């Protein structure tokens, strides 16, 4: 037995911040036009071309499902099925992620449902050094 502490998990995407008690999202917001971006740094705004810079912006943790696909076969080694979803975040950009907590049945999925953004372990996936990761997921808001 050893008492080496488990290393802290790492963010699975650069817009996930693990510097507080709870994971949070942080996006870039253009100082000129307010457009938001997922990447951690940019030279200019893709919408307006401004080079005035960006502020960190934390959105609400809710959004609206825009589109999805129920994926039954993906690249070799990828566990299926899962639901690939595009969500328009309230006061934030659009984000892709797994939609969980709904059946794998299009007849039972409200294509414009309200969702919350939650954080969880990255499905047990580890990097080459054994680090765990935290990812975002979408869940139906109505499922409370």
């Amino acid at each position, binding site marked *: 037995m050893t008492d080496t502490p488990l290393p802290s998990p790492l963010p699975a995407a650069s817009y996930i911040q693990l510097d507080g008690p709870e994971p949070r999202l942080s996006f870039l917001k253009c100082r000129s036009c307010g457009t938001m971006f997922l990447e951690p740094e940019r030279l200019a705004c893709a919408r307006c071309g401004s080079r005035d810079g960006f502020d960190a912006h934390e959105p609400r943790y809710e959004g609206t499902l825009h589109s999805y696909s129920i994926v039954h*076969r993906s690249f070799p080694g990828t566990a299926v099925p899962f639901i690939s*979803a595009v969500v328009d975040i309230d006061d934030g950009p659009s984000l892709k992620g797994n939609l969980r907590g709904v059946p794998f049945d299009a007849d039972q999925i409200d294509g414009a449902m309200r969702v919350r953004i939650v954080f969880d372990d990255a499905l047990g996936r580890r990097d080459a050094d054994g680090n765990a990761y935290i990812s975002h997921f979408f869940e139906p808001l109505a499922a409370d």
Partner: protein
Amino acid sequence: MNDVYITGIEMIAFGRYPHRTPASLGAEAVLGALDDAGITVHDIQTAYCGCVFQTMVGQKIFQQIGQTGIPIANVSNACATGATAVREAWMAVRTGDYDIALAVGVEQMTGMGMLGAARQSAIPIEGLMGSTSMPATFAEAGREYAAKYGTSFAQFAKVSVKNHHHATMNPKAVLRKETPLEMVMEAEMIAYPNTKLMCSINVDGAAAVVLMSGKKVRELGLMDRAIRIRASALASDPWQQRNPQMPDINTATQLAAARAYEMAGIDAKDLDLVELHDCFATAELLHYENLQLCGAGEANDMIDSGATALGGRIPVNVSGGLLSKGHPIGATGVANLYELSLHLRGDAGARQVEGARMGLAHVVGLGTCSAVHILEKA
């Protein structure tokens, strides 16, 4: 500006050629196009080659058929690669710098599997943050349309039924069998609503085209079989909020189409046939609207009524489309010009669109870009 004409064009039968090279496939298509125009490699003044997965294929092709020292450039623009090569050659002739230019597109894809590179990260992201696979990406594009206009799974599946039916009349298509609606809908589900029979096929293929200035066409006496390029338009993705989390295949297509119609001075009603980018069955319906073949939300009726089938108001993908021909990425944007040219020359056999005089060809490259060409019988 010169008028630009197609005087020679060829597409090899798409399929699996595991023991050949991209250069060999491309060379076969180029020789076919030269023969079609009645010229030799010594007449080609400049060449553009489209290929996504290999480099310097243009030079390698000329190493197969005759190294004349002409300027050759290789272009890559995702699934719009072949069309982009054609556009470069068209510009070279249009500006008057050259009288005879060649464009060739080629890809060798046997055994490549599902496309769509996973995003880079220390851990695999696929299936953790949704999917970047092409079937899922285009399923999401289709679901977006369906959410707006109520398009059903069956309506998307009918695209495959139609295009596979067309391909039974195309000996150069890789898939040549009827696929009734139940067969399409009950095939293996890949990414709902795209079943396996609603996905284009990875194949090896090549296509090539000889472009000439009007002056050269008249000088060589080739006008009777010449096809005039009325428009060549390319667009990139303007900023849009969900792009690139959700690649925007619509806006780039709309832009390219609008530019092409303006350049040609026509509108969609003047077209006799369309070859559009049906990489997945879900994509075809969106492009009816994007290419102005119908109004907002009318694509569902278009597929239900048979308007886009051979014999319908505006036949779409009478070649069988990418769903049946196969989709060798670099070749696709030249191959759809080959299909239009067959019809405009009256050489399309059983699938001939009767009296065809004007056709439109469209491709989308994820990343994102779109190219639209409008061809007219000279």
